[in-house]
């Protein structure tokens, strides 16, 4: 009989396919784990709906659960219960160490252009706040591009959603 703790432990080893330094548990996309006899039911919330990594994450979770000898049942929940605020403190630190600036906390009114164009965002390399928005959009739906005027390094900023 598998326990919930074993499942969480197994899922914590599934990397984000596009940013493998962070696990899907760090990312906060696993909303719930329930054991029902031999079946393990996982509620999973996608980050961005157009994220091509969605199927890969779902299949890898199912594989890890099957490896524990249980029958996986991964439910993709299409509501707005995931936000970047659900990324764990450990996850944020791992992102920063890898040169991705973690998302800022979500404001009730959502993102504003004037805020993105301000220099309140910290460079993950040198810590300076003298950074500029280069592009709202980046290499994946979840990231923007910024430039640090102090260490002259472009970097990827996680979008707050």
């Amino acid at each position: 009989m598998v326990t919930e703790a074993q499942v969480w432990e197994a899922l914590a080893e599934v990397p984000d396919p596009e940013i493998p330094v962070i696990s899907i548990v760090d990312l906060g996309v696993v909303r719930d784990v329930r054991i029902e006899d031999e079946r393990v039911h996982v509620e999973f919330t996608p980050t961005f709906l157009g994220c091509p990594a969605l199927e890969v994450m779902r299949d890898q979770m199912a594989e890890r659960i099957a490896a524990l000898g249980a029958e996986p049942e991964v439910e993709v929940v299409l509501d707005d219960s995931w936000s970047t605020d659900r990324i764990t403190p450990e996850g944020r630190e791992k992102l920063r160490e890898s040169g991705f600036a973690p998302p800022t906390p979500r404001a009730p009114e959502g993102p504003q252009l004037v805020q993105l164009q301000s220099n309140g965002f910290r460079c993950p390399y040198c810590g300076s706040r003298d950074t500029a928005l280069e592009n709202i959009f980046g290499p994946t739906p979840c990231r923007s591009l910024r430039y640090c005027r102090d260490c002259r390094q472009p970097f990827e900023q996680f979008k707050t959603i």
Partner: protein
Amino acid sequence: MSERAQLLLEIADDELILGWRDSEWTGIAPFLEEDVAFSSIAQNEIGHARALYELAARDLGTTADALAFDRKPEEYRCCELVELRLPEWERTIARHVLYEQADAERLELLKASDDAEVAGLAAKIDREEAYHRLHAEMWHGRLKDEPRYVEALEELRPLVDRRDGHTPELAPLWEEMTSVRRSQPAGTVW
């Protein structure tokens, strides 16, 4: 067809066709940042279409792919605005601004719906659309005094609500969009 399925298809078709048109800028936008921006926006819109088709497919006993690619062009419920191939940048930006405004109003209504599934999905889509709106807002600010842009806004505005027929541009787009799927035997699993 239920009212809910019709509504879901209308929005999904808008997002799929617009996503397809937006993706036409990949590699040829006026500058690199906009190659990335329009490609990313296209990816998001098609992701929204997929989620909406999945919900509709469950109601209609079919699959998202079948709804997206196996219907005839005349069965699509998208507005005329999203159908046009717009190789002029100012017209593309005008469409982007008009569509994002209309979409924001629609999402506000859906978020307040009694149907928890529709309201939840609309709220999720809206979080992502917020960045499309910022991009549209930024470009509107840059172009708002340019006569060609102002003309494009006037020209395209009436097409936002036009859903009773299709422009001649939808059929060739449909040919292109469905060619890979039509080349495979029916029932192929992707």
